[in-house]
């Protein structure tokens, strides 16, 4: 069943991940160095690693080679990796100066001497790189084992990062919650893998796809497979912070240090979406889902999967938004906002390859960049060596730090979908994808939700710029390093300017091949009229002129 793929090309395709992995090893060693310069160069090194990996993708990655190496969605793979790396560099930048802050202070003051056993900087960046490496591995997974390992590689370091991000009880509590609930979710999707394996008899995703297509031809995916898929989706929801597996998110985001929260709200999420795309690729979006609003038959995910995702999407965005309305802590609010954005993005997953995936990728870029702007600004502030967390502490800081307030405002505007910022275009694409897939009701729910979200995003715009400075915002000062602020500024400019180049970006992502046709190229079995289906096929062609 599984075709043999020689090792060489496979490793060649994995060069970027190998670079990142190597970098993590290097970083973890250098972090222990007694030389302050060397120690301080750790983030730079991490960023350079990511940059090198990026170069490797830019110049060493070809879709053909990847396809040869068994990557199922080569272009999707490339784009996801690129996004992870670019945003990853930003995430590294916003975490500069955070880890070991007290220790370094003490050393600088001469209060203590450097003790390699008590510093964690090296490990922190190493874990960060490992997690990024894991996330990068996901979209190219050829089989379930790979997928499982990549997912675990993504999550396990993050548990530790939360715990070590700051030495407080809150961080440890966040870590324990994150870890235990994460373990539960892992068990759930692992069991799902087992059921899929049971249904199809293979771990190879390409084979699974064929078997599922075969099953669809015989009336539908069997119960075992369906259950497995649903369990997987639910398990992945944990990574996405999507309902009903989102409950950990507010606590964990609040407990972790600001840069780590920024990390958590992006890397696991993109990993989860990549995993979801890879997994759902096995059942494909060309099955029949039902009758659309407009009366035409629409292709889509199998009905139970669609129903699950539909429900998850609607629940996630709604619960996220209504939860965010009540928050006093910026980070908790951002956690809920992150939840709701997962809900929007699930809509893109539902819409499927073509416009849906383009929307998903664009949305991920937009969300990642915007997140950087906001967390960059937040990480660039401190209050007595601690993170700035509550709205009160941000009150009126625009007077002193207009730039940071502006990054926050631009980020919020983008998250709420205010044109002409990046978030608007992302949402536009998303809604287009949703409507095109025939899910106008879901799009309307999403639209309503984005209107609700305005309330709390406005607070994030308004509190720093409009409110008078209060007692709790007086002690808020700039953080020790200017890198987070710089990263925030760059991200904010990107949020404003990227739309001008959106055409180029989307032009690139439009080329990605979402689904490889099943080798046997069976006609999709029909239970309803033939003609609309033909149109539908036409439609798919329009979506992806080059990729089929």
């Amino acid at each position, binding site marked *: 069943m599984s075709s043999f793929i020689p090792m060489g090309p496979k490793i060649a395709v994995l060069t970027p991940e190998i670079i990142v992995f190597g970098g993590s090893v290097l970083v973890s060693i250098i972090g222990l160095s007694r030389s302050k310069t060397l120690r301080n160069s750790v983030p730079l090194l991490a960023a350079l690693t990511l940059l090198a990996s990026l170069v490797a993708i830019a110049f060493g990655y070809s879709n053909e080679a990847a396809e040869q190496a068994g990557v199922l969605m080569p272009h999707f793979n490339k784009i996801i990796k690129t996004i992870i790396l670019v945003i990853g560099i930003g995430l590294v930048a916003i975490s500069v100066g955070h880890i070991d802050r007290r220790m370094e202070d003490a050393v600088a003051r001469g209060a203590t001497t450097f003790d390699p056993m008590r510093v964690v900087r090296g490990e922190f960046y190493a874990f960060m790189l490992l997690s990024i490496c894991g996330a990068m591995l996901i979209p190219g997974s050829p089989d379930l084992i790979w997928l499982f390992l990549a997912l675990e590689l993504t999550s396990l370091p993050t548990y530790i990062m939360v715990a070590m991000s700051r030495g407080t009880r809150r961080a440890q509590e966040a870590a324990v919650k994150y870890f*235990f609930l994460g373990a539960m979710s892992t068990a759930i999707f692992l069991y799902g893998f087992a059921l899929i394996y049971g249904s199809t008899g293979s771990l190879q995703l390409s084979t699974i796809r064929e078997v599922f297509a075969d099953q669809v031809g015989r009336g539908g995916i069997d*119960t075992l497979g369906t259950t497995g898929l649903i369990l997987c989706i*639910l398990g992945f929801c944990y990574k996405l912070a999507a309902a*009903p597996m989102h*409950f950990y998110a507010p*606590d964990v985001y609040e407990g972790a240090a600001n840069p780590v929260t920024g990390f958590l709200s992006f890397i696991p999420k993109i990993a989860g979406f990549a995993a979801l795309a890879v997994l759902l690729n096995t059942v494909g979006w060309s099955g029949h889902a039902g009758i659309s609003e407009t009366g035409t038959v629409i292709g889509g995910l199998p009905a139970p999967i669609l129903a699950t995702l539909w*429900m998850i999407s609607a629940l996630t965005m709604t619960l996220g938004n*209504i939860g965010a309305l*009540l928050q006093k802590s910026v980070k908790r609010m951002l956690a809920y906002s992150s939840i709701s954005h997962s809900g929007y993005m699930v809509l893109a997953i539902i819409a499927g390859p073509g416009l849906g995936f383009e929307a998903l990728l664009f949305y991920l870029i937009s969300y990642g960049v915007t997140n950087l702007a906001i967390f960059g600004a937040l990480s660039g502030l401190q209050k007595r060596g601690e993170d700035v967390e509550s709205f009160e502490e941000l009150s009126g800081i625009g007077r002193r730090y207009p730039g940071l307030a502006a990054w926050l405002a631009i980020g919020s505007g983008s998250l709420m979908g205010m044109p002409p910022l990046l978030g608007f275009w992302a949402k536009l694409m998303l809604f287009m994808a949703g409507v095109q897939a025939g899910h106008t009701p879901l799009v309307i729910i999403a639209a309503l939700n984005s209107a609700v979200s305005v309330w709390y995003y406005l607070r994030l715009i308004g509190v720093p710029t409009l409110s008078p400075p209060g007692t709790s915002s007086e002690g808020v000062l700039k953080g020790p390093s200017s890198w987070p602020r710089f990263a925030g500024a760059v991200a904010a400019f990107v949020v404003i300017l990227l739309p001008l180049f959106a055409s180029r970006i989307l032009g690139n992502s439009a080329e990605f091949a979402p689904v490889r046709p099943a080798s046997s190229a069976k006609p999709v079995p029909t239970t309803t009229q033939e003609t609309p289906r033909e149109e539908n096929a036409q439609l798919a062609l329009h979506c992806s002129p080059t990729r089929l």
Partner: protein
Amino acid sequence: MIPMLSITDTHADSPAHAVVTAIVNAIPSPELGWTGLILLFPAISVVLTGLCCALRVKSKLPGWITVLALAGSFALVLKLYFLRGDAGAPVVVHLWDWMNFSWGNQDKWHSLQADVSVYVDSLTLFWLLFVTGLGTLIAIYATEYMEADVGKGYARFFNGVSIFILAMCTLVMADNLILMYLGWEGVGLASYLLIGYYYKKPAAAAAGQKAFIVNRIGDLGLAVGIWLIWVNYGTIEFNTLFQVWNDADRGVGGFDKALIPYCLMLGAFGKSAQLPLYVWLPDAMEGPTPVSALIHAATMVTAGVYLIARTYPLFTLHPDALATVAWVGGLTAIFSATIGMAQYDFKRVFAYSTISQLGYMFMGLGVGTTFGAAYHTLTHAFFKALLFLTAGAIMHGFAGQLDLRKLSGLRKVPGFKIVSWTMLIGCLWLSAFPYSAGMLSKDVILVQALSGKDHGFVWLGWIGLITAAMTAYYAFRVWFRVCAGPVFYMPGEESHDDHDAHHDDHGAHADPTSTTSHEFHPHAPRWAMNGVLLIIMLGAFATGIPGYMEMRGESNWAQVMMAHSSAFAGSVQAHVTDAVNFGMNPHQLVEVFGTAASLGGIAIAMYFHLLQRKSADKLRAWLLAHNSIRWIPVAMENKWYVDEFYHACVRGPAWIAGHILHFTDKHVVDGLMVNGIGRIPAALGRLFQPLYNGVLQGYATTMAGGAALVVAWVVYRWLTSGVGA
């Protein structure tokens, strides 16, 4: 059908070009194109007096500018009259495009053509003659009357007068209904500004506002009428309209058409202060007296008569339309006469008499004699202007005193001779003294009414006769009280000289009632006022001429002018019949009973108000003493409580509704609905908040439970829909 002279425009493309075209068109053409200048003169006056206002000119310059401009207009009107004669064809002069656009073509219903164009036929000329003529005279009068305000409100006053004349000329010269509507509202604006001239008096400000708003009700009728006309005839230009009406569409139509006269009627009733809508006119007396004379007696209030005369053919669209006009007119006449009999403020008496006389005009229109109506308008314009101007002269002389109980024997006060005697002429004319112009014009109407066969017009004639008696009574009640009898006067509460000073702010002035006649020196009118009074008196005499000619069965210019205008075109002008009552035909009937009514009224007035002044009070006391009849004087003195009725039944409920709606808006629409919807998300959020309790197991359970719920939902969908796997 109707020959016309039209200077058509080239349709403008670009704005600049259009402006040039407009100016070129406004320049007099070799023929009668200069007609448009009749409007130009007051317009220039508006601008110049406005400038004077802005520059705070401290001389009588604005007054004389106005007089000159109006005189210029009057001269042009005269020239036009003499050029065209009584029965000339309508002149249409296009000035510039206004609300003019089309879709498709320029046909009926496919375009809306309301241009600033002038349409002059004999009806227009008839009105223009006395509007500009009296306007000029009254402006001259006002240059003296308002002299106390020089440098303060003087320019503003004449600006208002110029606006008024401009709007009034636009009204009567309009070539289409919408332009007429412009004039219609324009005179309302002038009226608003001039009534509120003494803006510091809250009553004046309120009166101006009331006039505008009540008129708006009428305007609503006019607007609906215009729309209905467009819907039914596809045009609102008089020329085309009458053509259409003449060619094809004569006579009674469907519901839509039948409504047209009633809507127009509403407009006319509003502007001419007829029965349901007359309430603003008495209050309008708060304005300076020349304004009352010009606007609220002679000209503006006859706009309603003009409107009906202008659209007379349309009043045949429903059989009862004209009868309604007649009855409303007749009832207004007698109704306001009863109020006029019981007022002490003689300006108000004249105001009610104006309403009453306007009622006669409508009666005339209704019973079918447009000539009678127009002729009465003409005579009324002169004698009522005369009365108001004399009243003004008295106010001017006696510091605003208007109470007829506080003035007496003015004919013997030095300087008030001319005033008193011209006032007598006015009163005689008003009371239809035999063979006065007032009698002649009124008779035309009453004869027509008494010879009517249906709609109870005969009864209307009798009502007219009774009203005539009442009119004679209240007219001479004023004259005998004020001008006859022993000399006695008390100055008014406020001298309008110093209305700009804060005279009523601190009570620094002595109580005005304590100012006795000994310390007070009446301020006699000078040449401008007296001269104008005399000229108008002569005019009042002159207005009798067509009446005499009519009486002798000769054709006269007024008659001819009406007959060659839309007021006659195809109308139902009835002929006087030989209906017999009391053995007399209508002519004899009116002659006998009219004379009796007039003389009887004067006699009663003489008894109560000259010979036995005490007995008037006694009569009043006697009436008040008897419970069964005491409502009569009370109601009459309180104007039949009509204002109060409107206040309670229209304004009150609307005001309460306003408050209720404001409350609703604040607390239901905004508070409950909008804020309520706004609260839903947060409330939902609070609903789910307990789930985020921070306990690890709690989260785990919720997650597992949530996952189970999702699965359950999927299974449910699966089972129910049967689609899918």
